[in-house]
């Protein structure tokens, strides 16, 4: 299984050799992305660039800033272990570097959240792995 559950019942990532550098950086409060010399940044971590299938990418530190591309406030709690944490916001965040990713938006008033809202990375250590969330920032 590629998803483990924490002691409190939440699904947490199980890093593998390809994704390990991302999670190691997150442990140090850094957002690291792969960058292809031809096609730029991509996400999620892959063995090859999804545009050109080149393998000459490098890990680069990213700004950790982005905007909410879209989101939804989950009011029933589809995520195991978070049923009692409703309502919570799940977003597609568009990073400054270009790629989009999925993250919860934390430390926010979910009813005030808007598409286009500027957000920045937040990190949460859960057992031996670190989750990447985002939170509103002033533009």
């Amino acid at each position, binding site marked *: 299984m590629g998803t483990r559950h924490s002691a409190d019942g939440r699904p947490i990532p199980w890093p593998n050799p390809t994704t390990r550098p991302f999670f190691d950086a997150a442990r140090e409060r850094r957002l690291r992305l792969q960058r292809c010399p031809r096609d730029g940044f991509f996400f999620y971590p892959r063995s090859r660039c999804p545009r050109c299938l080149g393998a000459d990418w490098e890990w680069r530190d990213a700004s950790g800033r982005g905007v909410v591309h879209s989101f939804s406030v989950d009011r029933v709690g589809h995520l195991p272990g978070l049923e009692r944490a409703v309502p919570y916001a799940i977003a*597609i965040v568009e990073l400054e570097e270009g790629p989009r990713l*999925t993250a919860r938006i934390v430390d926010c008033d979910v009813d005030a959240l808007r598409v286009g809202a500027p957000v920045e990375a937040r990190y949460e250590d859960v057992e031996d792995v670190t989750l990447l969330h985002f939170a509103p920032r002033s533009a």
Partner: protein
Amino acid sequence: MGRRAAAVAGIAEWKPLRVWDRPMFTLEACAELAALALEDAGIAKDEVDGLLIPPLQDSPMFGPSAAAEYLGIPANFGEVVDLGGASGAGMVWRAAAAIELGVCETCLVLCPSVPPPPAEGGTRPGRMRMPAYLGGDAWGSPQGAFEIPAGMVAATPSFAQVAKRYQAVHGLREETLAKVAVQARHNAQSNENAIFFGKPIGIDDVMRSRRVCDPLKLLEVVMPCFGGAALVVTSAARAARARHRPALISGFGEHVSHKSIAYAPDLLDNPIRVAAERAFRMAGAARDAIDLASIYDCYTITVLVTIENAGFCPRGQGAAFVDERDLRWDGGDWPLNTHGGQLGAGQPGLAGGLGHVTEAVRQIQGRAGKRQLPHCDLAYANGTGGMMSEQVALVLEGA
């Protein structure tokens, strides 16, 4: 015009049920559905030489050979189609293509979705439950690392992202989405097999229903249930000698672009744009010539963006289209999902997706009973799988 090499000759469809009263193994369900569909078509089992199935619970490997052996059908074409809600429509065009190429002549398209009998000493099968992780928790699956821990599980949170993005980019009143649910329920009142037969709703019911994932509310979400559906697809020549009016498969298209919604090339420009364009061009048919739209409707938003991206209105005009059109079977100016769709009839797994095809065939064959459209020679049917990630378009035409 169009390919016109193959046609749907017969259909089978079980009444969707929340609690299934006849548990059976998937292979058994395939046999039941095959017998029903062949009887409906008036085609002998010995004529079948093609089998199309979804991944089978009780034969997760070597599915086609397991089905060939169990059904006693030595096949010249055996295919497992794994396109989620687009699987049924995806099987139809694969069957048509194989038939046109001369690989086989008569195919069974099988979509069983029933619970197995309990193991000896076990308990009765419970209610339908969607597996929240949808296979994304396999070791090495990117979804297991980057989507599931963030809460992008099951399907509703993903489709809600599409709706929220649509609201922000084009503007979308929640009442517009509610109308899709209301008119689906209206159409379901013409279908005694529908889960929500006898239970019409109004806009206020939808607006007041429980908020699930903003902006989607409970009555905009399909009801998962059990059931099954099947088709007999055969050559146009063989279909012409079968029991019913052939529903020719005159155009088809498929497009698969992403798995998780975050990585969709564009949340509002869905794979159906490519698939429908190919299907209509292949059929040589105009969008405004269709008599029936049979559009996959796992959620209200799915219908709206599919109408738009399949080219029935300009980009950004999907909400206006839904507002302005009447989607009802009885007197609507753009009849949609005359059986009630999955929003009205229920979602019996992959059979719910195939249900959009069986209804189009029924209408073309003049067998829709009370809800029969006065005129149905050309129908558009589609399937949507995953998170708006894999879509199939079909243009069906009465012979």
